[in-house]
């Protein structure tokens, strides 16, 4: 069993270190005393009930939320280089009526040339190669608002992978995705992690996927309640208490 709090000096190479981090919004304490390390090349899953502060933690990591404490990134072997963060947002909803294709979305994010002028040949080829990473080349001319949950997550994943990040952050990537789509997406993330030596941090409510894919699970309930291997956390007393269960789920 490897349950414990992670913080201070750890013996691993860490891409992301969070030390004694706290967030207060309008006088309410959302997170307090959070210590968390994301080891290079590992997948860490954040679990916790709704309102536990998982999304706030991600916003703080992305610099979209003010916080107290320390959040630091590092690129292994390259001290001076700033870490690149890839981000896939939670439950993205796009208006099905918007005439915005996948290619347009990529052009808006990646190109200086205005997307309303259309894509240059080189930009289109670049978008295709990005989509190839998630086996989504056929989606390039589809409207973003008409994509299924799984297709949209793959497109946003492809977008987050350009440029290839040091750490990939996914907020509830499995919500709105069917069971088959979940497995496809998790297999893809595992494959990408190995191919590009990515560190992955994701939040999820789909605990059954965790033992197969995650290296570490951190249970969040306004602080890091416990952290360890998926098997250890999912069978822990803390997990049962936080989710009001009589026993673990494994």
């Amino acid at each position, binding site marked *: 069993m490897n349950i414990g709090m992670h913080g201070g000096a750890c013996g691993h190479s860490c891409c992301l270190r969070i030390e004694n981090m706290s967030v207060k919004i309008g006088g309410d304490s959302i997170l307090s005393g959070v210590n968390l390390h994301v080891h290079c090349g590992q997948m860490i899953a954040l679990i916790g009930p709704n309102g536990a502060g998982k999304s706030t933690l991600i916003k703080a990591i*992305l610099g*979209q939320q003010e916080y107290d404490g320390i959040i630091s990134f590092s690129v292994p072997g390259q001290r001076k280089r700033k870490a690149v*963060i890839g*981000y896939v*947002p*939670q439950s*993205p909803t*796009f*208006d*099905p*009526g*918007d*005439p*915005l*294709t996948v*290619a*347009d*979305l990529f*052009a*808006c*994010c990646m*190109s*200086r040339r*205005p*997307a*309303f*002028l*259309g894509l240059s040949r080189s930009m289109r080829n670049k978008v295709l190669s990005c989509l190839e990473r998630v086996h989504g080349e056929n989606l390039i*001319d*589809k*409207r*973003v*608002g*008409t994509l299924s949950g799984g297709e949209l997550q793959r497109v*946003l994943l492809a*977008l987050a992978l350009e440029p290839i990040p040091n750490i990939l952050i996914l907020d509830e990537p499995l919500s709105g995705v069917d069971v088959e789509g979940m497995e496809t997406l998790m297999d893809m993330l595992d494959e990408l992690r190995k191919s590009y030596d990515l560190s992955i941090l994701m939040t999820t409510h789909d605990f059954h996927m965790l033992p197969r894919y995650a290296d570490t699970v951190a249970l969040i309930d306004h602080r890091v309640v416990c952290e360890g291997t998926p098997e250890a956390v999912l069978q822990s007393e803390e997990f049962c208490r936080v989710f009001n269960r009589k026993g673990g789920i494994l």
Partner: protein
Amino acid sequence: MELWYSLWEALPFQMLHWRFMCNALLAILLIAPLFGLTSTMIVTGKMSFFSDALGHSAFTGIAIGCICGIAAPTWVAVVFSIAFALLFSFVRSRSNHTADTLIGVFSCTTVALGIFIATLRGSSFTKYNQYLIGDILSVTPTEIGLLALVLLAVIIFWFLYSNRLTLASVHPQLASSRGVSPALTQTLFTIAIAVIVTLSISWIGLLILNSLLILPAASARNIAKNLRQYHAFSILFAMVSGVLGLILSYHLGASSGAAISLILALMFAISFCFRKARC
């Protein structure tokens, strides 16, 4: 301008042998792409009611300018509209009310303030009618020059900011993660709309202005498959309806702004019937 006048005098169009009609046509050819372009982002960003409220604030600004005895009340209105847009953005970012509620609050307040100021000490409201109905036929060559400058500024803004604006409109959080500040881009865009709406109000009229800001893009959305088609159709619809509306109003003796709006509404109906299945 002389070249423009002589060009139309050489052609067999009776309507364009009048200089004020030539001026109006040129103004339409500048206003239409301006509205066609901005319309796309207003519809995508779900800002239809906001642009309507901006029109009302412009009217209030004109009323304030008139009562202060300023010779060019339009510029007072521009300043007032920009202040309105910035105040709205500020309150919205610090309030938990929905955007439509706040728009209602701001719109009601500015309309009431405008009417109150316009009718203060028993003043007649009649002189403000031109701002409600608009009169494109009254546009002067100097004002056309100003319109050309505004169009040029908006085109430059669009080339620099349209990607960021689109991203901020469709998904602010995603935009933020890509280094785009949704608040900054939205504020710049609302200032641009404030200027366009206020400068156009005396030619198009408050009551019709919003249709030009919404209908071109709403019609384009019915048939466009991507961003390029969306912009192209929106500008095309605005220009065609502008020219046809001017011709129609000349022959029927009706308000040109209303004629343009009606043709745009007809285009929306037609495009709605021909809307393509979503790909």
